Structures are given as C-alpha cells and as structure tokens.
C-alpha cells in the first residue's frame, strides 16, 4: 500500500513558520481533507506535497519512497488549482492530453486515454471547445480530468469549489467524490468550509496557525472535538463545564427545573430549525441552541427567561 507520509514538516517563509512540525499519514485510496481558516498553512502543505516548495525541514514519502527533494515535474502528482489554471491557448482535449504528451505517450494510447478521461468527467461534447467558452463547473471538470489523466499517485485539490456558486458547489462536491471512488486515487482536498469537509471526506485534519490540531473521521472531529478551536471551527460549539457541546445537544426548558437560567437574546429562523442565542446574565456567557422546526412556530421569544439543559434527543421541552 502506498500511503503518503508527511514527517515533521516545518516550513519557514520570511522568518515566519508557516508550517510547524506537521506529521500526517494519508492512507492509500483515502479522501483526505485539510480543513482550516485562510492562512493556516493548508495550501503550503499542498504545495509541499506537489513539489512546488521544498520544506525547510521534514520528509515526504509515498509508499516508503522519499520524494522530498524530487522536483514537481518528476513527481506524478495531479493538481487541481483554485483558479483551475487551464491553458487558455488550448482546447479542452489538448488540456487533458497535455500531461500525456509531455510524458511522450504514443499517439493512439494518448488519444484513448484522453477520451476515457473526457468521458469520466462528462466532457465528450466539449472536447473541441476552448476553455474560455466553458462555464465554471465545466472548467473544473476539465481541471480534474487533466490532473487524473496522468494517472497520478495522488490527486491534490486546492479549494476547487471557491469560485463556484452555492448550488453548483454541492453538485460538484458529489461529482468529485464519485470520480474519486471510481478511480480510487488517494486524494488531498483543501477547504475552509467545514460542511464541505464533513460531507466529502474519509478523514479530516483540522489545521490552525501552521499546526495540525486533530485528525479523524468527520464524525470523530465533529462529535469529539479535541479542543475549543476545532469545536468552534467545525460547527458551532458551546463550552459548558469543560465540555464542547453542539447546539443540537442542548435544549431549553421552563425556568426552575434545575438547569442554567438564561434569557433569550435573539431568535433566527434557518429553515429546518430555529436558532436561539441565549445569555446567562450572571456571567454574561452566551450559548447557541437549536430547536427543530415542527411547523408551529418557535417556542420562545426574545426576552423570555428559561433554563438551559443538555438534551441528547435534540429537542426542547414545551413550557
């Protein structure tokens, strides 16, 4: 199995450590997501893997083979760039065939493979088009097909959804996931969108300020955040008695039943649920609580005083 191993990677840029002792193992065939705010070092880590930068310290290996000093053109990494970086002077077909041409593949083999990846990305009808004539989603498909056509050891996706509008984003997410399952290629996906990270990944690594804070399955990271940063970045969190609790793990009950007494400060409707912002007036702490929308309006209104309790069912009692 050719796992990708990052060992104690540190990278210094302009006398600042943008990566601090990062160690990660990306299992063969996994869809692995780096999640973190902008400037956390996730793109730098991708660039280390792609070979665009050599880290100041640490080693990178694939299947036990050290590739730290291998220049990017010798690496066989498929990269999908944030702006796709399609070659504007080439057609869709030529873009996808480019890596194969560079590798000196024979013409018939090259054409067969290009055709296969055109089909995989659903681009058969656009093969002769110039890339400027494509929509954002189509451009992204070309970028993915071009990266996969070289049959890379690893696929690196650098925030590929950030240029798409919301509706398209969800669809492209599914598409990328499907293509990844079909090809089985080990994938590193970079995003700052927690929902995207949770819905698409086998494993998620949460990063902040050049460090990896937690690695785990989406469920592990969401349900058992290792610290306050992870808890807050991956969803909304309420710190109660040293625990990080999700809004859906809390409920509001009538005052005097033994919970923390709070006052409703704000109510917002999000569709599937109501979101309450409540304040504990003794110490000023604020909490977020969710209530399912059952079609009968919200239970509490601004100014009401009630009790905050833990609730595994994710429901609030009626007053």
């Amino acid at each position, binding site marked *: 199995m050719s796992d990708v191993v990052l060992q104690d990677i540190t990278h210094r840029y302009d006398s600042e450590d943008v990566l601090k002792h990062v160690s990660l193992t990306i299992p063969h065939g996994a869809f692995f997501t780096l999640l973190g705010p902008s400037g956390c070092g996730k793109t730098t880590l991708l660039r280390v893997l792609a070979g665009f930068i050599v880290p100041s310290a640490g080693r990178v290996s694939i299947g036990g083979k050290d590739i730290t000093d291998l*220049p990017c053109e010798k690496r066989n990494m498929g*990269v999908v760039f944030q702006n796709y*970086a399609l070659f504007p*002077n080439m057609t869709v077909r030529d873009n996808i065939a*480019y*890596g194969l041409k*560079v590798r000196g593949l024979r013409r018939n083999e090259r054409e067969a493979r290009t055709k296969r990846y055109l089909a995989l990305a659903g681009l058969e009808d656009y093969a002769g088009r110039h890339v*400027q004539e494509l929509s954002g989603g189509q451009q992204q498909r070309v970028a993915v097909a071009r990266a996969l056509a070289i049959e890379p050891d690893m696929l690196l996706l650098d925030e590929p959804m950030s240029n798409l509008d919301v509706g398209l984003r969800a669809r492209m997410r599914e598409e990328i996931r499907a293509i990844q399952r079909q090809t089985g290629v080990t994938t590193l996906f970079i995003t700052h969108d927690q929902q995207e990270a949770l819905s698409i990944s086998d494993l998620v690594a949460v990063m902040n300020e050049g460090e990896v804070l937690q690695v785990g399955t989406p469920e592990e990271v969401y349900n058992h955040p290792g610290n306050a940063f992870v808890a807050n970045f991956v969803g909304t969190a309420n710190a109660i008695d040293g625990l990080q609790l999700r809004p859906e793990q809390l409920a509001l009950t009538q005052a005097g039943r033994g919970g923390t007494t709070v006052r409703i400060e704000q109510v917002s409707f999000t569709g599937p649920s109501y979101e309450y912002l409540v304040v504990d007036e003794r110490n000023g702490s604020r909490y977020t609580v969710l209530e399912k929308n059952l079609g009968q309006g919200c239970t509490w209104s601004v100014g009401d005083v009630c009790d905050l309790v833990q609730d595994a069912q994710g429901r609030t009692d009626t007053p």
Partner: protein
Amino acid sequence: MSTQARKNPVLPIWYAVTALLCLGYVAFPFFYTLRSATFVDGSFTLDVFGEFFANPNHVQVAVNSAVLGLGTVLVCGILGTMLALYMTFLAGKRKMILHILLLSPMMIPGVITVIAFIQLYGESGLFTKALQMLLNLPSAPYSFKGFGAILFVIAYTQYVYFYLNVYVALKYLDYAQVEAARSLGASWGRVFKDVIFPVIKPAVLLSTILTFTSGVSSFSGPNLIGGYKVLSTQIVLSKVNNHLEMASVQAVVMFAISIAVMLLVRWYGRRTRSVQADRTATKVVPLRAHPALLLATRIVVAVQILLILLPIAAIVYLSFMTTGSIMQEIFPHSFTLENYQTIFAKPRVLQPLLNSLEMATLAVAAGLLITVPSAYALVRRPSKAGAVVRFLLMLPAALPASLIAINLINAFATENVFAFNVPLIGSFVILPIAYTIMALPMLLSSNEVAIGSLHRSLEEASKSLGAGPLRTFLHVIVPNTMPGILAGGVLMFIRMIGEYTMSALLYGIHNRPISISIVTNMQEYETGISLAYGVLVILVCYAALAVIFRLDKNRFV
C-alpha cells in the same frame, strides 16, 4: 447619450478639423512623395524606380536596411525577453532600481548615445584604449565600424521596447498555469513554449514591429559610425545632391519594407490564438534557481547595467575635458568648465539648445491639443467617424521618420493650401510640425489609456449635480486624467528634444536643433562642446523623467 452626441455639433466639427489636419500634413504629403517618385516633367514614369532597382548598389542598400532591421529584432528580442524573464522570475531585491536602470536608454536621445559609444568604443575611445593597453597590443583590438558596431548601438537603445512590453505582459501570466504544467511533468523549456510564450506573444509581436521599423529607419548609428550604407543615410545624400525624386523612391522603398514586415507579423499574430489577460491570475512566486544559473543570469544583467551606465559616465566625464585633451591624451585629464562656459556665454552657441527646447515644447503642446479632445471623444463616444479619425491620427506610426520628412519636403517646398500658400520648408515651424506628426500616435494612445481609466460615474456625478459638459470636462475630467496625459507628453518631449533623423532633412538657419549641433561640432573637432551639449540634453531628459515619475509612477511599474 448617443442621441445627445448626434445633436452636439461640436464633435463633428472637431473630427472634421482633425481629419483635415491629418490629411493635409500626413496623408496628402505621402501622395506628393509618390508623385515626386513617379512623375518626371509632368508625366507618369517608373524611370526613377527603374534607376533604383537597376543599380545593384541601391538594391544592396535596401537589403542592408532590411538586414539591419532583422538583426535589431533578433538581438533586442533575445536580450529584452531574457531581461524581462529574469526580472519576473528571478530578481529579488533592488528590483525597482534595476528596472529603472534597464529602462534608462530610452531616456537618452539616440544621437547622443551614438556619440557616447564612439567616445567609448571608437578607434581612440576610452574603452578601446584601455583594452589595448591592458592586452599590450600595437593597435586597437577591434574596429568600431560597419554592421556589428551599428547593430550594437541600436540594440542598446531598442531592447527597451522588448523588455518593457514583455515585462508588462508577464504581469498577466497566471503562475498557477506554470505550476500546472510543471506538475503535469513539463520541463522549463516546455513551460516557456506552452504557457509563457502564449501570454507574451502579443507583446513580442508588437515589439518585433516596433524594433524592426526603428532598425530599418535608424539614421544616427549608420550615419555617424559609418561603414554600412542604409536607406536612411542614402535618402539624406540624395536630398543633399538635389535628387529629390530618388530620395522619394528610397523613402517609399523603406516604407514598403517596414509595412511588409508589419503585415507579415500581423498575419502571423492573427493566424495563431493569443491569450487574453486574466484577472484572476495568481501572482508569480520568485523562483529558487540553481545557483550556477542564478550566477550566470546575474552576470548578464550586471554586464547590461554596466553597458548602460558606461556611456553616460564617459560622456559626462569627457564634457569636463578640454577638446585638446580629448583629442591628444590617451586618457584625458585636463579638467575644464570651458565647454559649458562657451555654451552659456555665446548666444549663437546656446541657440540650438533653446531651439530644441522650444520646438519640442511646441510639438507636445500642439500634439496634446489635437489628441486630448479626440481621445476623449473616442473613448466615450465610439463611432464610425471616430474610427476614421483614429486611423488618421495613428497613421504616422506606420511611417518611418525619413519618409515623414521627405513627405513634408515634397508637399511644402512650394505653396500649399494647407499652409495658407506659404512655403514651409526653410521656416521655423516645419520642424515642430514634423515632431508633432511623429508624436501623434503615441500621444493618442497614452491619452486613451489615461481617459479610459477614469471611471464614468465621476462624470455622471458631475452632470447630475448640474454641471454642463464643458464644466465637467474642465473641472472633473481634465484634473483627474492630467497626470497620465502629461506623463505621455513629457515622454514625447524627451523623444523630440534630441530628434535627429527628421531634423537632418528639414532643419534650416532659423531652427537649427541641438542634435544637428552635437553632430556638426563633433565633425568640426569641437568635441568638448558637442559632449557638453549632450550632457545638457541628458540633464533635461532626466529632469523630465523625474516629472513623469511624480505624475504617473504606474507607467513604468
């Protein structure tokens, strides 16, 4: 807006006047030249063309010009593109100062550069003598004459076009595409061919046209260095020998060569797809090059910088030496202020400098007067009539300087209705007119950029607050576009103050320009005066450059 434009009578009148001026001073004079070349004693004949093409010497001169043009493109293309790539991908610290140094040859009139080069590399030049002594040779190690020497000087001044255009084009390179190609396995050679070249191609083609035209029509180098006959020098010779018909034919042949290459390059450009500038482009990350490569490129750049600074240093140094010392001593060292004192003490000696200052100022003022309102109308109210006017204003860009001068001679040696039936040749105004013609295309495009970058809402705000069109133009548009407009004007002023090619064909006793005086003083062994003139012009140019920098820094960065 457009209906309003149609009602407005000012615009058609303006366009008509501008078109009439362009026709009278640019287009019709060219037909006078054609007539002079094909009408002898009132009847049509191709005899003069026949005379030209039957004489192998004439044909050789035309071939020489074309070869010089090609050589210029090749040397400037390689040097300028390499420097632009270096500055984009490798240069780290001191990038700004390096950039300004690399642009500086543009700021010194060609004729002064040539003289500085002769003082450095000529038979008794400083560099030549130093090398000769260093190697202990009995005579000069090389002869600074002929094709090689001329190409060397032209390349030194013209690489700037390639450098600047390619450098600006590289700003639009999407660095992610470079990385994409690299990650797909492409070598640097392939990256250049497949990713970088498509982006810089329009700039390369434009620079090819520009440098070919200036190579074909270059005059100061071939004239002062000698040893290689080209059309521009033969045109002056024909004119001096009163064979104006032959001068016309030679100018037309020169025009044909440069137009042919221009069309060829355009055709190639249209045949292949170019890349549009990308707004979402990722910025270039300076590369970590192999130390050996980095050292090699640094040496090339250092040599280039030295080549740029040496002539200026030499000319400034020698301008403080007595002429006798320059002529007799191996390394002149008799310091004197005499050269400068002579210039400022004798009105007759100072006059050429004043003439050039006045004529360049007049030309820029007239050029701006014509192009600013035109540029405004063209940017804000595009129309068919506007396109015609624009074509006419851009026409001089396609004409070599020698041809513009020959055209004027043919058209204005006698009475001409466009000059109110006064012969202009021999009068003071003929040179400012020639300079204005030459400056029109550059001024127009620089004004279009300045006005185009002004946001339309500013104008609309002014109008919505009740200001009329004139008030809006004077109080909103002019102040906000003035820096860009003036910077373009100053650049043209620099170009015209040392203009030599047209001046050599058109000057008279009333308007002797500084470039002519620099050359005649040199030829009359008043070397010290000639070099002091050169230094004064350089000073004026650098002062003007400082003005541009204050006005419009972005022009170069």
